[in-house]
């Protein structure tokens, strides 16, 4: 369906902002999340304020084997899919804790990939659709402070780029979003540099425009593109000595 958007990981601040942006633009919504009943207030809010239809979908990205079936059982399938899901914990804790390691990889890589595979196959068959995936600047180069999360996100970047390549030939567009710092509940305790930090609403606008203009990769704050460009150029023998 043309004006129907699926948001994976809708309970996050960014997910909510994207839902609101699309609702404002008159799109119907399918909001997927774990404990989706938490989204009941958001559902009524978006429906009443914007006069659109908003459906909820219970979705647990760690249940990888069931994800394709969840998608395939949808009667009415959204034509745009935006995967915001992601999960970050303190790297040192994850390093020591196997279940946290698996959870980090699952929610940032295995889960999204399994679900998006099913969606991609569908879109490919129909020759239409848009997939936008949220990765992270942390995925552009592994740093000691968050390389487990970062490596899962790096995998996801590679996945999205390959998917873009594959689906291009089937008229399906794939967008990679690298949001940089965002003011959210997750980052509320940090003091973030204003120049590099976006609000969830700015992220939502960037995604909306990125999809409309068929951009391939979107950094929300343009500065990040250059910062990461420089960071990626630092030779490994120097980089390994840095405390980043």
């Amino acid at each position: 369906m043309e004006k129907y958007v699926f948001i994976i990981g809708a309970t996050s601040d960014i997910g909510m902002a994207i839902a609101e942006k699309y609702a404002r633009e008159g799109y119907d919504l399918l909001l997927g999340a774990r404990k989706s009943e938490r989204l009941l207030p958001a559902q009524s809010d978006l429906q009443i304020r914007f006069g659109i239809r908003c459906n909820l979908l219970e979705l647990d990205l760690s249940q990888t084997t069931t994800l394709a079936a969840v998608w395939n059982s949808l009667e009415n399938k959204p034509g745009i899919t935006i995967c915001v899901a992601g999960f970050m914990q303190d790297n040192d804790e994850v390093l020591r804790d196997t279940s946290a390691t698996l959870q980090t990889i699952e929610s940032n890589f295995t889960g999204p990939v399994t679900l998006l595979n099913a969606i991609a196959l569908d879109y490919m068959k129909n020759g239409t659709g848009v997939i936008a995936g949220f990765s992270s600047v942390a995925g552009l180069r592994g740093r000691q402070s968050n390389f487990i999360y970062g490596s899962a996100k790096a995998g996801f970047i590679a996945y999205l780029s390959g998917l873009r390549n594959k689906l291009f030939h089937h008229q399906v567009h794939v967008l990679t979003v690298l949001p940089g710092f965002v003011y959210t509940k997750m980052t509320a305790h940090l003091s973030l540099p204003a120049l590099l930090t976006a609000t969830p609403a700015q992220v939502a606008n960037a995604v909306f425009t990125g999809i409309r203009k068929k951009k391939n990769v979107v950094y929300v704050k343009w500065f990040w593109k250059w910062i990461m460009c420089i960071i990626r150029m630092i030779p490994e023998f120097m980089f390994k000595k840095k405390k980043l």
Partner: protein
Amino acid sequence: MKKIIANWGNYPSIESDEKTFSFPEDLATYVGREDRFIARGYGRCYGDASLAAKTVCTLQYNKVLSFDTKEGIFECQSGLTLDKILPIIVPKGWFLPVTPGTKFITVGGAVGSDVHGKNHHVDGCFSAHVMEMDITGHDGETHTCTPDDKADLFWATCGGMGLTGVITRVKFRLKKIETSYIRQKQLKAKNLDEILRLFEENKQYTYSVAWIDCLKKGKGFGRSILILGEHASVEDLPAGKKEKPLAVPSGKQINFPFNLPSFVLNKFTVKVFNFLFYGKNMKREINNVVSYEPFFYPLDAILNWNRGYGKKGFIQYQFVLPLESKNGLVEILHRISDKGIGSFLAVLKVFGPQDDLISFPKEGYTLALDIPVRNGLMPFLDELDALVLQHGGRLYMSKDARMKPEILEKGYPRLDEFKSIIRKYNPESKFSSLQSERLNLTSR
């Protein structure tokens, strides 16, 4: 996140560890864990009611839960602001049952202060239209209450300044409208006697409020402009507006960029008043049809106008005196004009009867004026407090930043009852603000 916060009067300010939440579980966890904090909405109360070293901000908890467009019943989370509600309800032919002079307040704040509008003499306070609400109590549990069910909790929450817990959900009745316009009448009054007479003669009007010149002495003492309004019907509208009778005004705003020395704002209001008073229409009466926006929220067009009072901030002094205490009103106005420290303009309104547990309004005259903070102000206000009490009046907690506990005690006859309900629902003073500590409503 720690930051310096102040309410609308910019006095006092305090460093506060502010927590926001989007889901009820997060609030419950916070309430279970933290101690001595207060709920905070948009911070549009003037003084220290929603200030504390720890605050829980409701602005992210702002979802519309239901809207019955047939019956005019609206239900939302407590952090939703009135400016977001209006564009939802107005196009469907409904309006807020009661609105203060700014739309930038939350529904939680409307209940917490039990706000009044220009229609108090007809429609009462906000609480008169609340059907049901949820409050997260000191135990972290959600308590649903109505005017009849858990009535003690309900009435101690309306006007209770956040001391019973965090209001999370409110369901209230709306007012039916045919158009989004107001049929407005402005009347000039030469002096205080005339304005009070005009209030009396025009009490059938749904909305009424007056701007009064506080500085004018002699014959013209109390000269004012009375503003009356009725929701317009489609017939009242000029030809160009009849096709879209429920249009929502665009609400463009300009920002007040920095703190000004306070005399600048005073000069500005003097000019506006003189313009209206002596301006092109020397007529005694003006009638026109205006959108609801300039009628209800004339000041909202200038964001952050409070900065016009300078860095030190200001106090908005608002009291109510019983109708029979007209002399008291005269005396207080004289004191203010003799002292010459008040704003040039004050807002005067007549309240209808109301007798709730802790809500501010009761039948009589209410006057509100802004006074910039400066040396010697607090003792002077203490003198005014004594006069207010002497004439059987009281002060509005939502505007207060400095009254002494005995002023509250003497002004609110049911204060003991209120305090005992607070002890029941807030036994460890978990919900506690600078104001509640100052006024001995919670322990220190």
